[in-house]
């Protein structure tokens, strides 16, 4: 790195000196979070992976195909993510001050890129170590196969980091490339003959239960080395205006996220419409319910990327829910994932509900009551989720060969619960002051956990209700749904 760039970044880092007390408190925080949160989660994951059901899943004939699919989705997502938040990012002031100097971008941005790349690679390597280590712990694979798969994890991470940067440097071509990776990824997952010809297919061939180390890993090494060689070119392609815009957006989102205002943080990254402006979303003369249904549908079509992602997430939720009803399936886990995906998928479909919630907490704008307005805006997401969830559940049930009635009814319940969670989320408002009170315990201040739970209560309750649904626990489902309704009614009453 250039000396001037280093000096500037040193000054920047020194702007907020930490006292010894601050450092000790930070170390204490990290240790407590590691002990109280991270360690139990890691232990639960390891125990699940090495259980009889976990090993059966990891050693099953479909596991390599799943690895192919996961890799393709990871790389495609990295490409798309780079368009909005790339790995080569500096704080806004530094981006402006250094970006307008004569220093080369590859010099300036190498450090943040390395930092982001190291995080991605650590995650993929850990995942590969977990999978390989679980199989090795049962004697299914040897040390060599384990080592090769861990190396595969490293290479997948490196390629993902470069794909992330490529999305930032080439935002326009990133979309068709990501779609191509996704389509070919699905093809390679379902047609093994294609795997030797695609990089994501090489990951499937390097999977430990695929029959031991293969030349596919060599292909991944060459690909990763070639992509790393392109990094300086990609860094030097980055435009200053886009670097500053991404930096400002990230800083704003981080500030809101740190204050647990996740809705506003997410809004910073919500795609803004550019298409369909000549399509009239509102025409007088329709019944009001149709006015809101059409207005929300056209509004969603104006950001087609978000709409497709939302519909795909709902379809994935329906598929997971149908699989959760299969005999011997880990129902609660698949159900919880389905709830999470349904909540996430409803995000792009509920702009109208968020608008209704804003209007309901402000001066009257429309000539109809707040409840009427909210109900009108709930219609579009309700229609989409019923159609997509039912279609996904039916197709999956037919393919897997399970009865479709229970999953179909379950998907309707999931849809309603996820929509309630979205409405609760839209009505949330500022954090109740009572949550700011410390809750001292021997394990530390649990007030922080309460505040964190409040900030993600919608998705937690949706996932919990869905897990209860898939695990066949109607009482728990009813209790969770009742909590959602209670929270929603309370927020509605205090909306102004």
């Amino acid at each position, binding site marked *: 790195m250039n000396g001037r760039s280093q000096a500037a970044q040193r000054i920047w880092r020194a702007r907020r000196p930490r006292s010894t007390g601050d450092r000790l408190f930070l170390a204490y925080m990290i240790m407590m979070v590691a002990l109280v949160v991270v360690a139990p989660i890691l232990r639960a994951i390891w125990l699940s992976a090495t259980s009889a059901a976990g090993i059966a899943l990891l050693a099953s004939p479909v596991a390599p195909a799943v690895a192919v699919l996961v890799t393709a989705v990871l790389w495609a997502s990295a490409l798309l993510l780079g368009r909005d938040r790339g790995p080569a990012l500096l704080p806004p002031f530094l981006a402006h001050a250094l970006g307008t100097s004569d220093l080369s971008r590859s010099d300036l941005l190498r450090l943040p890129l390395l930092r982001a790349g190291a995080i991605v690679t650590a995650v993929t390597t850990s995942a590969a170590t977990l999978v390989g280590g679980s199989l090795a712990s049962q004697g299914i694979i040897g040390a060599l196969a384990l080592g090769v798969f861990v190396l595969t994890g490293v290479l997948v991470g490196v390629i993902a980091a470069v794909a992330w940067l490529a999305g930032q440097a080439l935002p326009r071509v990133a979309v068709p490339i990501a779609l191509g990776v996704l389509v070919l990824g699905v093809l390679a997952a379902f047609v093994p003959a294609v795997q030797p010809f695609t990089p994501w297919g090489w990951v499937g061939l390097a999977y430990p239960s695929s029959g031991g180390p293969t030349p596919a890993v060599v292909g991944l090494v060459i690909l990763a080395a070639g992509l790393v060689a392109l990094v300086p070119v990609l860094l030097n392609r980055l435009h200053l205006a886009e670097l500053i815009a991404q930096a400002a957006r990230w800083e704003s989102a981080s500030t809101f996220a740190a204050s647990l205002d996740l809705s506003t943080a997410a809004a910073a990254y*919500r795609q*803004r*419409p*550019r298409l369909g*402006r*000549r399509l*009239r*979303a*509102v*025409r*007088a*003369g329709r019944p*009001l319910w149709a*006015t809101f249904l059409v*207005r929300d549908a056209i*509004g*969603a079509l*104006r*950001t087609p990327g978000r709409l497709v992602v939302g519909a795909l997430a709902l379809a994935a939720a329906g598929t997971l829910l149908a699989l959760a009803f299969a005999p011997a399936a880990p129902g609660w886990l698949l159900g919880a994932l389905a709830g999470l995906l349904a909540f996430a998928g409803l995000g792009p479909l509920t*702009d*109208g509900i968020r*608008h209704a919630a*804003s*209007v309901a907490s*402000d*001066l*009257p*704008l*429309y*000539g*109809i*009551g707040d409840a009427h307005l909210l109900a009108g805006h709930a219609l579009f997401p309700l229609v989409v989720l019923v159609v997509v969830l039912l279609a996904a559940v039916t197709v999956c049930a037919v393919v897997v060969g399970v009865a479709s009635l229970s999953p179909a009814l379950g998907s309707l319940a999931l849809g309603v619960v996820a929509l309630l969670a979205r409405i609760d989320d839209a009505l949330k408002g500022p954090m109740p002051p009572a949550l700011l009170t410390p809750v001292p315990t021997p394990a530390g201040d649990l007030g922080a956990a309460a505040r964190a739970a409040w900030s993600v209560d919608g998705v937690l309750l949706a996932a919990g209700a869905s897990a209860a649904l898939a695990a066949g626990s109607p009482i728990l489902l009813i209790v969770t749904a009742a909590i959602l309704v209670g929270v929603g009614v309370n927020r509605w009453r205090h909306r*102004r």
Partner: protein
Amino acid sequence: MIAVDEVGVVVSGVTLLAPVSAAAPAGSALIVRGRNGTGKSTLLRVLAGVRRPSTGVVRVAGEAVAERDRGFRRRVAAMIGLPPMAPDLTVLDHVTLVATTWLDDPRAAEELARAVVVELGLDGLAERFPHELSSGQTQLLGLALVLARPFEVLILDEPEQRLDPEHVESVVRVLRARRDAGATLVIATHSAVLADGLADRTLDLDAA
């Protein structure tokens, strides 16, 4: 139409609005003036029914203020700060949607929406989304939303904000037309142009 009798607002011992009295008959404009922090917006919030006064009474058309009452909402339109806007609707969509929810006759709703858009000079921006508007254009869209509906009382907090002198003049013309048609206007403003162009009565909170 509006009678304000010794209305004051005190929160936790802090006076947000010292007691004031004023009246504005139908077809008149009451201009509220005063330095920052004298309680102009607080008074408008009381008139719009979103804040309860600590002392005194407000009556609109002889009735107490009740924001949750449908009749009151139909009678009183207010813009105190920008109204919530939908990021996925164009300017024309926004105005038409508001008009559609207030008027039963579809043709009248379309005509009112288009007329308001033209009146405020937004016709060239009808197909823009909110994030494509400048701050002044966003202010005009806010005004368009509050004008695209029937009302007897119009309450506005600093409608001149973010507007250039030419647009302030055009807002004066638009509001004068509403006043002359019989509406009661209550406007808090720092703009001499707006005050001179509209005021039938002035309430100076600096003197309160």
